[in-house]
């Protein structure tokens, strides 16, 4: 009987490792993943301040503490109840740095769904409630990782330039989703974060943040973009990072710090100079300087490491 179970487990594991598209993974890691109940990889989560980013119901409790019971100043970083509309972003270029400064570039296998050519789509909206995207969600960058504590995790928020202008209507998943494609620039949105106020005083006021490469021109099929708008996120937490026990957390509240939607909607579509008033307020949250599209003088605050 035990043998039967073992065979079943082995058969299933083999099927899992083969992973629908012939991608193989390290069986030992798969077993370890089984032990932790997770597929192997770098896990992500999304919050709005102290609350989970969710499509169903209001997100509140993300405010700063107020001594008064009456809140008079409302803004995104305040206490207004909000409804999430969209939260999806592409990540790529993962590196782990160990205690001896050895850098490991993680191999990101094609999975046929969430990963292609080293790019992973993380999707925190399920199309329900106030969200209008796709039903499927993904919080995992599937890759082989060891159960050990590293000094630094590094990744890029965005799609490499080599893939940024492919024809999305025939591109493999996850590069074929209209909500992330940026048809106007023949490129992609690297990051999409949107929510609306559900507070009576500011009902429906929206915060819309779309990040993608801008200032793109094309000549003989070759695109050049003046503003890359890709941020390299480097996380070096005290005590290090162990992918088996810790995850990367994205905070939408921190992403829009600097915006006040109490008087009206705020949007940044990363359309270069046309959009600088609103974009330049929030780009530094991602560690980016909006005017150049490169790393700015302030460190990013939107990603952190937390326990699983």
């Amino acid at each position, binding site marked *: 009987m035990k043998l039967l*179970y073992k065979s079943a487990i082995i058969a299933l594991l083999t099927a*899992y490792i083969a992973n629908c598209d012939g991608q193989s993974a390290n069986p030992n890691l798969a077993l370890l993943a089984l032990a932790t109940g997770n597929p192997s990889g770098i896990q992500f989560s999304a919050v709005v301040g102290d609350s989970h980013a969710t499509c169903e119901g209001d997100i509140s409790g993300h405010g700063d503490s107020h001594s008064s019971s009456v809140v008079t100043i409302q803004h995104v970083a305040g206490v207004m109840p909000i409804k999430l509309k969209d939260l999806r972003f592409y990540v790529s270029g993962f590196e782990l740095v160990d205690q001896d400064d050895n850098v490991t570039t993680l191999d990101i296998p094609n999975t046929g769904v969430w990963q292609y050519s080293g790019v992973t789509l993380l999707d925190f909206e399920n199309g329900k409630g106030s969200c209008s995207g796709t039903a499927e969600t993904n919080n995992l960058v599937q890759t082989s990782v060891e159960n050990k504590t590293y000094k630094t995790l590094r990744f890029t928020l965005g799609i490499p330039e080599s893939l940024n202008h492919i024809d999305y209507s025939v591109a493999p*998943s996850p590069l074929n989703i*209209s909500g992330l494609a940026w048809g106007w620039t023949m490129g992609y949105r690297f990051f999409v974060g949107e929510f609306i106020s559900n507070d009576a005083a500011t009902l429906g006021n929206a915060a819309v943040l*779309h990040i993608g490469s801008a200032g793109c021109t094309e000549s003989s099929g070759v695109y050049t973009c003046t503003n890359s708008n890709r941020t390299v996120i480097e996380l070096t937490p005290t005590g290090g990072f162990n992918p088996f026990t810790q995850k990367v957390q994205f905070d939408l509240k921190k992403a829009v710090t600097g915006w006040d939607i109490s008087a009206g909607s705020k949007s940044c579509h990363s359309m270069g*100079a*046309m959009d600088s008033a609103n974009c330049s307020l929030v780009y530094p949250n991602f560690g980016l300087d909006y005017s150049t599209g490169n790393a700015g003088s302030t460190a990013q605050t939107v990603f952190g490491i937390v326990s699983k």
Partner: protein
Amino acid sequence: MNRLITFSLFLLLLFQCTQLGLEKEKSSGSEGILLLLGTSAPEGTPYTWDLPPGFPAPRIPSDNPVTVEKVELGRFLFYDTKLSENETQSCGSCHKQEDAFTDGLTVSVGSTGQSHPRNAQHLSNVAYNLRQTWANPVLKKLEDQARVPMFGDNPVELGMKDREDLLLDRLTNDPDYVSKFKAAFPNDQNPFSILNITKALSSFQRTFISGNSAYDRYQAGDFSALSASAIRGKNLFFGEKAECFHCHGGFNFTDTILHVGTVFEEVTFHNNGLDSSRFVSPNGGLYEFTTKESDRGKFRAPSLRNVELTAPYMHDGSIPDLLSVVNHYVNGGTGDGTTNPNRDVFVRSFSLSESEKQDLVEFLKSLTDTEFTTNPKFQDPF
């Protein structure tokens, strides 16, 4: 425990193999085989161009030859409100045949009521456009442009973002479309895809040839086709006094053109001297892409064919009628546009009598092609 693990693995497998449902975009496998053979299977009935005299053959993307079947499918898709999420609008809602495929509005309004920052382009002779839209240097093909109204959210036009499956389901469940898609894309195992929708829409639009206006008949030797006033206007238009032809020249009355004989693709955008208030966000023109201040207010010079029917004018619909447009150019611009450093060199003040202005307007009206605006081949099939 073992049972639990086995069960978990089953779940894991199920989850792992769940597709996003976007694999519908894959093209059929037969194309690859044909590529290996170095041939391509016939893709329907080649479309026969019936081009007016002096019109070169349009350059068609090699991956989307125009066929009768694609044009027919495209005609249905163009006028079908299934292409908007709330099923209230089609492409034809903002591109009406009687207005040379524009909508008569200052700026267009999308399916959710959101105003567009721009005035809807007319679609006469779009097959010859080197670039689509008012000021986008990277939208080269109609196939690429079609995705903007379908999936764009800034502004929302048809509102189909993240609704590819809904759109494809709507079409797949319509028996008329099943046969039309099969006929248009006979080599595709599953012809229903966003790419094929854009290919069919583009094919239909490429047939929008307009070359039978009074002016064209005059050029062909029917000298009674133009009034004396329109002939005087024509001479002003093409003469050194008004110099309209620099930006609105050639058979399509524009300065950027693409056809089979095009060797150098010269993409030009112009600042035509409108007041600087017309060039602020989101109407910066080419500046939106290059972020160079010298490109602020630069837009594509549209074809003047059927211009009588495409009022109001300019990228933002800010000039109501043809006489006002003539006055704008005679004045060398409007407001502080007359001194705008980005202003095109050919936009400069010159003197024109009131009767000469009327002559110019008469000439512009002679570019109206009623055969084009009433052609049953372009009409709404529903």
